[in-house]
């Protein structure tokens, strides 16, 4: 890591960002390997950002075939039949991403047929949750944007667990955008870094809960002012899981079902139902397509977080980030149990 200088080409290309985070951070970025699963609009934005930043490699997983549906929020797909006919999302995005920075290695990971999990036959994404732990060891950061058929929570938990089993720290992120809203989750396990305050260098340490631990924190144990979006997303997520839907495959027809689920969850968690407003749930049910400005915002925040975690520079956020275009706030929530609460 030390001693290897940036090439002249890198110095020229990365000049403006080296002035932000320094040459050391740039070097670390150039040696990093990122795994990305689920190429929706927000993730496309994120990939663009890290490719421009100059990571070592980006590995894409998304075996879904490109259709007209995939086009709207994803600028990496050129709408010419010839361009995408028969190709998977990962393949098409790979080609586009390479153009942004020839120094970054962009590749597609396909899931060999024999490991396709029965659950997912006919499902959209290759199930890397069945991959062994050693597959994930190659990477420094793993980003998941779920498209698994009705198994979003399980899928995310499984992958997160694998990341945590390794001796090496693999950063784990999930992201989902629906209409005006976006949610991002971060797990850096036991993260140590240093920063300069005034003239001295201080050592910092943050302990992150796993995804499973975080969403298991009883709602009544959370601080009063926690974003309503957190709860609403959990209700919708669980609804989709139970009903076997893809993320985003909901409509206003599901309103009653969702409200019923909310009632149950609130009772179990001793949370007042007014903490999860009807209007918010309705928006999340009906406004499910990705909204490009929100993709850009979440993709940007996610990009910054991954760059921070890899370069070891800057305070990473812990552990959820929410954005709602309705009120314009982009806020951080610390959803952790008492042992990892900051």
């Amino acid at each position: 890591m030390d001693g290897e200088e940036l090439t002249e080409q890198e110095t020229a290309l990365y000049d403006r960002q080296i002035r932000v985070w320094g040459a050391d951070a740039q070097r670390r970025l150039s040696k990093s390997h990122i795994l990305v699963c689920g190429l929706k609009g927000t993730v496309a934005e994120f990939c663009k950002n890290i490719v421009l930043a100059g990571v070592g490699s980006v590995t894409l997983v998304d075996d879904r075939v490109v259709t007209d549906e995939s086009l709207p929020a994803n600028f990496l797909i050129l709408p010419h039949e010839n361009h995408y006919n028969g190709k998977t999302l990962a393949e098409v995005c790979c080609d586009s991403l390479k153009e942004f920075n020839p120094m970054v290695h962009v590749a597609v990971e396909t899931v060999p047929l024999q490991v396709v999990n029965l659950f997912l036959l006919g499902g959209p994404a290759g199930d890397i949750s069945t991959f062994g732990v050693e597959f994930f060891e190659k990477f420094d950061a793993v980003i998941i944007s779920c498209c698994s058929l009705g198994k979003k929570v399980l899928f995310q938990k499984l992958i997160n667990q694998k990341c945590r089993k390794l001796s090496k720290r693999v950063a784990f992120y999930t992201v989902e955008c629906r209409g005006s809203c976006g949610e991002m989750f971060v797990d850096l396990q036991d993260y140590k870094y240093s920063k300069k305050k005034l003239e001295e260098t201080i050592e910092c340490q943050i302990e992150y809960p796993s995804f499973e631990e975080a969403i298991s924190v009883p709602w009544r144990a959370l601080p009063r002012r926690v974003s309503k979006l957190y709860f609403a997303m959990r209700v919708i997520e669980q609804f989709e899981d139970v009903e076997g839907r893809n993320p985003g495959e909901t409509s206003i027809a599901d309103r009653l079902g969702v409200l019923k689920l909310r009632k149950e969850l609130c009772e179990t968690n001793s949370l007042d139902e007014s903490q999860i407003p009807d209007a918010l749930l309705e928006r999340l049910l009906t406004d499910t397509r990705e909204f490009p400005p929100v993709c850009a915002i979440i993709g940007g925040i996610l990009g910054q977080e991954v760059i921070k975690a890899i370069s070891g520079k800057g305070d990473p956020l812990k552990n959820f980030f929410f954005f709602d275009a309705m009120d314009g706030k982009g806020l951080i929530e610390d959803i952790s149990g008492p042992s990892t609460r900051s």
Partner: protein
Amino acid sequence: MSSEEQLSAIKGAKVLMVGAGGIGCELLKTLALSGFQDIHIIDMDTIEVSNLNRQFLFRQSHVGQSKAKVARDVVLRFRPNISITPYHANVKESRFNVDFYKEFDVVLNGLDNLDARRHVNRLCLAADVPLVESGTTGFLGQVTVHLKGKTECYECQPKPAPKTYPVCTITSTPSKFVHCIVWAKDLLFAKLFGDKNLENDLNVRSSDATNLSEHSEDVFECRKGEDIEQYGRRIYDHVFGHNIEVALSNEETWKNRNRPRPIYSKDVFPDKLTKENGKTEKGSATDDVSAMASLGLKNPQDIWSLAENSRVFYESLRLFFLKRQKEIGNLTFDKDDQLAVEFVTAAANIRASSFGIPLHSLFEAKGIAGNIVHAVATTNAIIAGLIVIEAIKVLKKDSNSYRMTYCLEHPSKKLLLMPVEPYEPNKSCYVCSETPLSLEVNTHHSKLRDFVEKIVKAKLGMNFPVIMSGASIIYEIGEDLEEDMVAIYAANLERALSELPSPVISGTVLTIEDLQQEFSCRINIKHREEFDEEREPDGMLLSGWVEAPVDKNNNNSIGNGESTSSALSMEEIQEGEKDVEIQETSESAENVTGKKRKLSEVSKGTIPDHSGLPDESSRNQNQLEKPDVDDEDDELIISNDWESLTKKKRL
């Protein structure tokens, strides 16, 4: 947010983007993806390598081409059926007049300089078109919305002016590295390689002529039979040796300051130089001419020693004369001119060494000399997303939901993206509220030329002013002026204000208009005899005009060039405050109107009592600590524009 109404508002909208750079590329992409179908984009720049880390629409193969045009071509590849009209032009051109702006439903700025922003602001006001402004620097960014009569215009709030330094600090008493850079760039480089006829504060008298005798010669003129090494040593000795000795001879100056030490070439290089440059003739291609390459210095992040800096000084000087002779006399400093950057870095470092100021690497020096804005793709992407969200609100005329949004590097009360309601217009804003200004000036000494250059153009930002006193036009700049008028105006420039055909004296009210910007303002003239040379070197004081003071060395005439991309000033960031957060300071902005109200208060018809200047310190501190209200619809109204919390509005 997405509904039929919204979609049709977007589809039918005609949008103008000004700037196709960092923010522009992200913005154009997001607009296209969001369903906008008629986008116009103005940008005068061409693509450079350093853009490619974030202006993702551009490729290596595009370097040198027009940003506006390439951006359009690339976006059309993923949205072929929309209309994007590029203009490879300067937004200040006269064809972009009020009628041009009136065609648009909203204007979106992605600019990198204050001047152009002010210009666009005025045109949007004149055309009554909503403007969404934005800026980014590193991890910080902001988006603001401006609607004539409803919100503040872009110029209602103080914007930091480009930083300038006192002449004497640059020529005699530098204390910071940036002072050395300005000296090296604007004085030494300009003198050696630029237009020799330009005024220059550098002392050029040789040691033989300490008084202004007829035989004094310009040291910088090459002498007969002198070779480049001799010339180089002579220049070196003059600026780093002789000039320092001259400065030292004035005891007063050094009473409370550290004395500099003179440096002579014989002390750094007792032997001939040419022997050491074994690789001098390597790489004879003119575009690769570089002192670093020639000397084997590989890393621009290294901090060179005095000896190394001196070698770079000589070598770059030598290479200019050897390989770029033709350009000498016409050169201006360009941050992308490697040899120029090397020369300026070396010269600044040697001077710094002399004054005990820490030396800097070429990388750092280049950033300072070139006013380079540090920039990353992610911030631009976030800001672009926020711009589109505001643009859509504007198109839907959803005025209650307009927000100014700040993108912070460190969260404030859990917020990384902080929305704030816009304020109503500043009643003292001379741009949108037509408040008259006052100018104190010595009407017998100051010439019209000073007034035009320093006040009308520089401070008021007018490009084509017409200056009138009562019914007479004293001066104007424009196309198609009659020859005799041009002659009269030229003559007027050289006259003192009180000696103009239509005398300008105490009590005169001047009206100044810029017809292109459709902007006019009045200035009340007050005669004053004395001006402090240090603090008011221009000999003029403009008031009623809201300016953010940068530091105590404010009124000065040597600058370091244009300030940078966003209203978040580079100075704030350079001055050690890496986290430019909301400052809880008691020195908060004096609320000039005393009645700044948020839009929501206005529309509800309530007028909170801010009469008499509020106790700003407690008010702001209270606002900053105000807890979230127990209301699910609450708007998080944190505070006033956080920048202005740190600035005083000078009246």
